[in-house]
Structures are given as C-alpha cells and as structure tokens.
C-alpha cells in the first residue's frame, strides 16, 4: 500500500501521455498535458511526505513536518503547466483560424 501514491503518479503520467497521443482536438490535448504534468506533482509531493508530519508551517509551535522543498518545486511546476497550456491554446486558435480545424491530424501542412 505504501507505494500506491507512486503508482498513481505513474498512472497519471502514462494516461496523460495516452491522451496526448490519441487526442483529436488540440484543446483536449492541452488538458491531457496537464494531466500528465499532474503526475509529476503527485510524485514530488509523495516523495516529500512524512508519516505523521504536518505542513511545514511553524506558528507558533515546532512540530514534525513534511518536506518543504518538494512543495516549492511543485509550485514552480504548476506555473509551468499554466504557461504551456496558454501557449498551446494560443497556437490552437491560430490553427483554427488558418485551417478551420483543431484536429492535430488534420492541420499537417507539410511532411517528409
């Protein structure tokens, strides 16, 4: 049981990846990327968790606390995820304007 959170992280990662590969809509694809990214949030936080630990906020008392570093990393991670979604959506709007489609399989302008 104590590996369940890690398994969840791997699950989110691979399910998100599946969504990216199978997506027929760029907006859908962007959301799938966030699902994949949330796998890394879960992994980071699970690694830093300590049984019986509380949040690393010490006011007014000192107590056993979980790792603050992974939380800081996850905060950065979330910002990254927002920016990537915004950029992909902006590109998707452009694709829709130019080709009338947001299906990644249909907007292939060139290949080879």
């Amino acid at each position: 049981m104590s590996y369940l959170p890690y398994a969840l992280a791997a699950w989110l990662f691979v399910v998100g990846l599946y969504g990216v590969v199978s997506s027929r809509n760029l907006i859908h694809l962007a959301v799938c990327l966030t699902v994949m990214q949330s796998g890394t949030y879960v992994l980071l936080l699970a690694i830093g968790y300590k049984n019986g630990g509380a949040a690393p906020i010490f006011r007014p008392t000192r107590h056993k606390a979980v790792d603050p570093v992974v939380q800081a990393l996850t905060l950065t991670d979330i910002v990254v995820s927002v920016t990537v979604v915004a950029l992909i959506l902006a590109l998707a709007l452009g694709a829709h304007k130019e080709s009338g489609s947001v299906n990644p399989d249909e907007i292939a302008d060139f290949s080879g």
Partner: protein
Amino acid sequence: MKASDILVDVFLASGVIAQLIACIGVVAFDDVFDRLHFSGAGATLGPLLIGARACTRNRHGACGAAHRFRSGRGDGRRTVGEMIPLQVVIIVLVGAAALAVVRQADPLRQTLVNGFYGLSLVVLFVVFQAPDVALSMIVVGSIAYPLILLVAIARVRGRAEDTTDTDKQ
C-alpha cells in the same frame, strides 16, 4: 475532534460543492457568457471556502487528527501500511478522474471533468500536507484554466448563437 476541526471540514466540503455546481453550470448553458458566470462563481466561492480550509493549520484537519489517533496507538507497530483510508480513497478518486478527463473527447465536457479532477487533486494535496500547493492548484484550476479553456472552446466552436448550426453540419 474539536468544533473548529469540524468547521474547517465543512468549509472544505462546501467549497467542493460550490465548485461542482459551477462545473455543472458551465456545461448546462450554451452561451459562453453564462458559462463564465458559473465559472466565476466557482472562482469566488471555491477558493474562499477551500482556501479557508487550506489556510487553517493542518494539524487540526482530518489527516492530522487521524495521525494523532494512529500514533497514539504506538509507533512501535508501524508497518508499510501506514496510509490512512482517506488517502487511499482520494488516490483512487484522482486516478479515476484522470482517466475520465483523458477519455472525454468533447473539450467542453472535458473542462467540467477537468474541474472535478483539479478539485480532487486539491484534496489530495491537502492530505499530503501541502496547503501552499493546494492553494495554487485552486487558483489555477478555478480561475486560470477555466477562462482560457472556455474562451478557446467558444472561439473554436463559433459563437453560442451559431454553435448549434455548425455542430449539425
């Protein structure tokens, strides 16, 4: 469990419910403005209530209480099965929600499911004793994502008035 503990859990629950209603509203209405109203309601009430819960010190929350209860039984018997049932339930919930998000091909419905998924992640983060991260996830999941996603979807589908026509074609 003290009265204050119960109170903060009530905050959490009502925040979640507010978010859920907002999500349903987003899907129930066709017009992007009406949808945004609901996501706006989610953007205010949800963060307020869930944030209130996240900001209260977590030792007094459900997980902290559970842990005190556990460690009261003695540290000597710690085994691998250290996780508390709440964590297991939420982990399974997050996993299922993620699958639902990916499998939902329609972007608009996916936004709803994604809102629910974001919420379940928030709860998971609270359980993992990461209130800062939970707060970030709330503000991102209820303010940033819905707006840009809904506008993009609306733009791609055409305006609400002619949505139905283009869909039928």
